[in-house]
């Protein structure tokens, strides 16, 4: 009798996990990811446990469920995303449509914004980047990264870290790697 109950619970959990994966993998709305309140509506109040189990199961596929805290700091505003557990190689990133120059502009921009207490004037950043990249590349890349959510620009033309960078990039590691790179041989 108890085995039957366990089987039922297991089947329910598996069904909910499948549902969670479907919700996470299909883009709903403009930005990827699903907010906590929506997860609760689809999976019930124990959605966090379901997502944890799903994340563990996805490990073998090189994926994980990642949570990005919302501005309000509540469970409902937290955004859940499916992302790659391992970082891609440079050539893999290139096949996904990112040129080395694009990634270099993004790395420098994110590091610069973080070193300037989380906000930097667009003009100031452009001036800095133009020392290394052509003007058209800087303008094009910044606009592209703002559009894709890696950077956020307000009405005063101040750039901040965008939601996508918070979701996809380990910012602390980026700062450490940039600082620890050997530049003596350059």
């Amino acid at each position, binding site marked *: 009798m108890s085995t039957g109950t366990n089987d039922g619970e297991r089947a329910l959990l598996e069904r909910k996990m499948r549902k969670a994966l479907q919700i996470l993998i299909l*883009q709903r709305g403009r930005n990827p990811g699903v907010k906590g309140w929506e997860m609760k509506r689809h999976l019930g109040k124990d959605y966090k446990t379901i997502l944890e189990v799903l994340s563990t199961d996805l490990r073998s596929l090189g994926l994980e469920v990642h949570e990005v805290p919302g501005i309000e700091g509540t469970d409902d505003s937290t955004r859940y*995303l499916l992302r790659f557990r391992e970082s891609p190689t440079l050539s893999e990133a290139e096949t996904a449509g990112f040129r*080395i120059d694009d*990634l*270099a502009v993004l790395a420098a921009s994110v590091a610069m914004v973080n070193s300037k207490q989380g906000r930097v*004037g667009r003009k100031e950043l452009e001036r*800095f980047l133009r020392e290394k990249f052509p003007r058209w590349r800087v303008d094009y890349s910044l606009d592209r990264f703002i559009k894709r959510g890696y950077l956020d620009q307000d009405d005063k033309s101040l750039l901040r870290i965008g939601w996508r960078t918070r979701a996809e990039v380990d910012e602390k590691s980026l700062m450490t*790697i*940039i600082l620890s*790179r050997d530049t003596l041989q350059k």
Partner: protein
Amino acid sequence: MPERQDKKLEDILRLIELCRSVQSSSVDPFQVDIREKLQTLKKHLPDWKLIDVMLMDSEAMQQLVAIVKLQDQWIKHRASSLYIDPLLLELKIRLLSREDLANSFVKCWHPIAQVDQLTAKGLEKAFVYWRDLVPMSERFRNEFGNYGTVAGPMDFEELQSLNIFTKEQFETRLQKLDDELVQKAGDTEMDYRSFIEAKTFEEKAVRAYLTAFIVTEGRATIRTDPLTEKIFISPVVGKPGSETKSVAIEVT
């Protein structure tokens, strides 16, 4: 005495400007001495009598609050492990090659995995939407009669066909308005907005429409003062000039 008052007002304006410039740049917010600025505001407060100046004073206070908020964020960021001396980082980025920078980025990058495609449910929704969508020619029939067009500029023929004007009425009203302009403005010019002013908005729109015809026909000219942005209209006596320019004026 008024000079001292002006000096105090200038202090407030300068304070607001300083706070705004700090907020719109990456300047250290601690460069604003909050204590000193608050004391200045406190010292000047009993002298303010006019509501406009008091509002300016509260605006200055609000700007100072925004600076304190920025200072709070600044401290939190500095306390976090993300803080690195900007100069050191700038130097490091200058020395690194593009490949090094790109490599640094991909090492801490975990792209989002997602599928952007149609589902059977989405396809069904799209089909139902398309099936129930009223054709363009019928969509605005209730609002615009048989025209089936969205809002946009109307020409004289359209207004005639909608019975807003008949040709005779139009000519009569045009002449009447022209006479009114000559009578009101005389040899000088007058404010355009007060000329087209009427009791109802509909009447005002009609006056603006007819005035546009008077100007187009060269019976009047319109001039905009670049400093005040005020628009003036004046009747033209004799032959109209050859130099014409099209301008759009909003009627509110």
